């Protein structure tokens, strides 16, 4: 470098610029620390009544107490079962239907306007109907999660399918692919990484509808533990329920993100 020419330090905050993974992790942790700090301050300074906001250490203790009981694990188990049943059912029917709707205009016309219409009916408003239809057994919870996820999933998958570059399809035709071969070897293959992304999103909604389903007329599941805790003004346990649901969501999301990277390195 020429003497006298000063090297300008690169800007730290550059748009879209990748940062070191460690820096990312530290920054992420700092936001959690900040949240807990504010929480600690509010609850221990006496500004907020501990009945409304118990201190973090009390919640932590309660968390370990609950995780030490097999009864709580039973609640976790049944909730996970409900979420994954409803989600799997929505995927099993919604993904093929979405691909179909995104592939042919006739199927789009048949499927999409109807889905759009039903999508605007709030899933929660179906609860009374679901209870009439399915009673208050397991099937009603699964049905609500299904309704909350299915219609949106179909529309999102259809959209993904339509957005596959048409030239990829044309290339496969000029290489001798039939229509069905093109759907199988191009459309379905091409949407996979995006589909995984969509599923992560939808799974998040499944957890939301789970809690809604478990707040009414049940005696098991994480939503139920929250409801029960509210009755006894046991705010520690409400927080524990929220945190456990958050952790379960985070764990499944991370697993899916990891799978996405491993399964589709080409994307």
């Amino acid at each position: 470098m020429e003497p006298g020419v000063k090297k300008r330090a690169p800007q730290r905050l550059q748009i879209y610029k990748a940062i070191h993974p460690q820096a990312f992790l530290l920054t992420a942790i700092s936001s959690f620390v900040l949240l807990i700090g504010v929480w600690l301050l509010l609850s221990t300074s006496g500004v907020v009544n501990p009945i409304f906001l118990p201190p973090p250490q009390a919640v932590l203790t309660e968390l370990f107490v609950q995780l030490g009981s097999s009864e709580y694990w039973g609640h976790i188990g049944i909730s996970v079962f409900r979420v994954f049943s409803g989600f799997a059912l929505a995927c099993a029917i919604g993904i093929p239907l979405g691909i179909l709707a995104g592939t042919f205009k006739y199927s789009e016309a048949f499927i999409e306007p109807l889905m759009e219409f039903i999508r605007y009916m709030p899933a929660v408003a179906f609860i009374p109907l679901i209870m009439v239809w399915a009673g208050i057994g397991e099937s009603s919870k699964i049905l609500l999660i299904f309704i909350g996820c299915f219609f949106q999933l179909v529309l999102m998958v259809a959209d993904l399918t339509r957005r596959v570059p048409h030239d990829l399809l044309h290339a496969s035709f000029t290489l001798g692919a039939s229509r069905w071969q093109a759907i199988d070897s191009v459309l379905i293959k091409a949407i996979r990484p995006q589909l995984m992304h969509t599923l992560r999103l939808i799974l998040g909604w499944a957890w939301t509808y789970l809690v809604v389903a478990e707040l009414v007329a049940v005696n098991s599941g994480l939503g139920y533990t929250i409801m029960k805790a509210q009755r006894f003004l046991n705010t520690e346990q409400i927080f524990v329920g929220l945190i456990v649901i958050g952790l379960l969501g985070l764990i499944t999301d991370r697993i899916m993100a990891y799978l996405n990277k491993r399964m589709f390195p080409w994307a």
Partner: protein
Amino acid sequence: MSQAARRSIQDMGFEDKASIKEAARPVQQSATRARIEIQGVHKRYVSRKSTFEALRDINLSLGSNEFLTILGPSGCGKSTLLRMVAGLDEPTEGQLLIDGEEIHGPGADRGMVFQGYTLFPWLTVRENIEYGPKLQGMPTLERRSLSNHWLSVIRLEQFAQAYPKQLSGGMKQRVAIARALANRPKVLLMDEPFGALDAQTKQEMQEMLLEVWEREKTTVLFITHDIDEAIFLSQRIVVMGTGPGHLAAEYEVKLPEGRTADVREHPDFLALKRELSHLLKH
């Protein structure tokens, strides 16, 4: 070439140009040897409000093993014409034939290389090359040796296991050419395949394509708006004009086979280039 096309050449005042051929060869061939015949093809895009005439009365035939380039300014309808040969689009009027049979929809007999990158991103380079033969049910071992052959032709052996996103633009197009040719099409259709490449890469790709064409004796219908590229590659050049798209002139390129970069200095090359530049300015 048909009456109509010849008429339009005269309309433009080129009938006295010595280099304009009466296209005797393709006409003689059309009964027996022409691979592709385009007869009285018109294309109109009709929307609710208006009709847009993209192509008017196109007549053209392409002989076996011929390298023919359609040269024309952007927007004159070259892609539209090529897509109809590929069967990806239908003519409004007229017909297109391959080996005497009318073209209906796309098929493996007409391989295509697109301007954009159309490798399948989820397949490795080798799998991309094997895509067509695999659909055809070719056994694995045979497919392996076929892809090995093509990997060496395009000099990408080390990239057999790479995914398209790891390749440069030039490499991608090399694979796209190999993928199309590994499927043994009767005709290779190329729509400005090197249009997005830098000048240096473009020339390398042109040389490689010529090499492949001379070795494999493929029939090629090539599209470009690049005069240099058209002359360097082709045996015959058909010039298209706009408003609506039509065939304006035809040239035979009488440069020796086994062309190398030096051919660009050849007096015939330069003369033809001057003439085509002049023609395309109008």
